[in-house]
């Protein structure tokens, strides 16, 4: 065990040392400015924005504490987008023209990312999409945009596979009315057509600003599906879940509740849902029992020390985004945009979640890390920590029905 720990620490030290290798001595004193667009105020997801910010700050500290990149510190220039496309567009414009950042990252909402990449593409500045899941971001085919985070087709395939393994016949997705929600609902439909064509599938789109979803839920109570897939983000997702539970729709003996939005990662999850979350199956991009590289463990520990919270998926995605930029600068031996984009395209880097490379296939796979690891777990008790949940499907493994729990009535 001690030997393993020493080997892990050695790996981390080598990784960080590799990032710090000399790039260009002339600008050694100047910090490397990296632009960050995140949601720091409503109506976008401030919770996500906070997690991404923490992840970037943890990664920046790790890099800077180890001497920076070629002796140059990483400086984050943060802009609040409020999750709004128009604000995201303006933020990227400012970062590119006024702040002269070398790359932009952090975006965690698809609608904002779709607006931001247009500006990044115009200025030909590297854009690392931290958490915009919409396939359309990739389908644009912009060479400046790289995607080390999750993507809708991946969740679509995962959700469809889970539905097939559960043996359900009728599935309803409840999606928020955003590029992310609608795109994901469609991706699940496409995946189901391929691997489980007998499953009846439809999706409902709901306004994420709404506070009452009963009119959408009542018809489901009259004719409950076998599974409901949540594709909404908090706080709307919490309200919807509570109303599903109050109406006896899901989770129930008849209907599974499957979450495709990473709700269990949110620190306010249990306070807001209580019994309504018990029995929920979760598409998980992070689980403490997942195999993780040494850098991931280091980032997780640093995050817990900084915030006193358990690590979450966005922490690692954000940290990887910054590590990738630092790695590309090191290999390009330059902060020039063209050189950085070329270096990013040739990435082969072991980050916090595994070895990251970018596909050059067209469509949703363009500049995408295709093998983003995921698991399926089930929350079997109220207030249960993710680490204590039932891991019903390990990364790359089929679902284990023996581990599933369902309410008796």
């Amino acid at each position, binding site marked *: 065990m001690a030997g393993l720990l020493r080997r892990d620490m050695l790996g981390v030290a080598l990784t960080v040392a590799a990032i710090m290798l000399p790039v260009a001595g002339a600008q050694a004193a100047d910090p490397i400015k990296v632009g960050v667009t995140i949601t720091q105020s409503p109506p976008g997801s401030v919770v996500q924005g906070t997690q991404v910010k923490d992840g970037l700050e943890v990664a920046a500290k790790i890099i800077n504490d180890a001497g920076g990149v070629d002796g140059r510190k990483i400086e984050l220039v943060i802009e609040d987008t409020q999750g709004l496309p128009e604000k995201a567009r303006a933020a990227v414009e400012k970062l590119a023209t006024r702040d002269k950042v070398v790359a932009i990252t952090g975006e965690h909402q698809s609608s904002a990312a779709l607006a931001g990449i247009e500006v990044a593409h115009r200025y030909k500045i590297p854009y690392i999409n931290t958490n915009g899941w919409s396939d359309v971001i990739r389908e644009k085919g912009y060479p400046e945009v790289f995607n080390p985070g999750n993507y809708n087709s991946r969740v679509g395939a995962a959700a469809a596979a889970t539905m097939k393994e559960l043996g359900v016949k009728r599935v309803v997705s409840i999606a928020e009315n955003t590029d992310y929600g609608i795109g994901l609902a469609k991706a699940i439909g496409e995946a189901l057509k391929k691997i489980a064509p007998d499953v009846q599938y439809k999706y409902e789109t709901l306004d994420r*600003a709404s506070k009452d979803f009963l*009119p959408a839920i009542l018809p489901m109570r009259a004719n409950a599906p076998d599974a409901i897939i949540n594709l909404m983000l908090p706080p709307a997702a919490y309200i919807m879940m*509570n109303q599903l539970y109050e109406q006896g729709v899901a989770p129930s003996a008849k209907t599974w509740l499957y979450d495709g939005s990473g709700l269990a990662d949110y620190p306010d999850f249990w306070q807001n849902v209580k019994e309504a979350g018990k029995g929920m199956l979760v598409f998980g991009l992070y689980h403490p029992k997942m195999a993780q590289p040494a850098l991931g463990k280091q980032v997780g520990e640093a995050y817990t020390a900084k915030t006193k919270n358990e690590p979450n998926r966005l922490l690692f995605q954000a940290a990887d985004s910054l590590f990738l930029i630092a790695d590309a600068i090191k290999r390009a031996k330059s902060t020039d945009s063209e050189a950085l984009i070329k270096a990013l395209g040739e990435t082969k880097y072991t980050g916090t979640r595994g070895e990251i490379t970018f596909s050059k296939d067209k469509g949703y796979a363009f500049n995408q890390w295709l093998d983003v690891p995921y698991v399926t777990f089930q929350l079997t008790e109220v207030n249960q920590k993710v680490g204590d949940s039932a891991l019903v499907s390990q990364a790359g493994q089929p679902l284990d029905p023996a581990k599933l729990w369902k309410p008796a009535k």
Partner: protein
Amino acid sequence: MSGIDVDLAVNGLITGVFYALMAIGLSLIFGILKIVNFAHGEFYMVGAYAYTLIALALGVPVWIALPLAFVVGALLGWLTERTLMRPLYAGYTSWGLMRDEYAVIVTFGLSLFLINFVDKVIGPYAYRGPPLVETSRVVLGPVLISGHRLLAAGIAIAVIAVTAALIKWSFWGQQIRAVSQNRLGASLAGIDTAKASVIVFMLSGGLAAFAGALLSPVINASPDVGIFPAIKSYIIVVLGGMGSVPGAIIASLFLGVIESFGAVYISFQYRDAFGLILLMLFLLFRPQGLFGEKGREV
């Protein structure tokens, strides 16, 4: 009427009751001050947080936290009136000279301030208030409803009834009505119009906060939680007739039921548009609303 129609009607009426609790305060403020309070939704938000935090963080029983949320909203109303509203009409006795157009900017600014203040001080995370009763489901024939929602609707009806009675029969209620009819005339008759304004702002803030508190186990308090209810309240106040409390109550119930049925039989996507369509139709064919007076001051 099928089972789902009964369900929709009951849920629509309950939603309407909550709309009414929220809209009455807005209507009262317009009636007496002739301004639209754009921070009304944030009084609701403050009430939701006040109830939730008093009950959860301080461990105060919910039946004490609930009236305390009303008190917090009333105090915020008092503070708003004294610091932001009164300077707009201080020194003037005539409505003709009141700088009410500034009130729009002031209250809009207050709304943004409160949202961002709560976001920074309490945080962006949502908080679910503790329910008044732990019964998760009550079966009433074809209707399945959460115990809290049912009880909250009953309390809301009682509060609305008491408020309406106070405005109609109490000493201060009569003075408020006099000021809303003619501020200058009421002033000449010896009524303290400034005091009436303070009472209305406190009552309005208290009712909005009380609505937020009652619904916090359903809507989960978050910094932007008041935006949608406020928009609904503006629609209701126009539909019911600007300044008319009975109009606001009837318009609230009407809107709740229309939204409930429209969401199922037309589209949930357009649920929030139904109120706006009604608003446009009323403005075209009955601009004074259901109970508003047809007239215009020059």
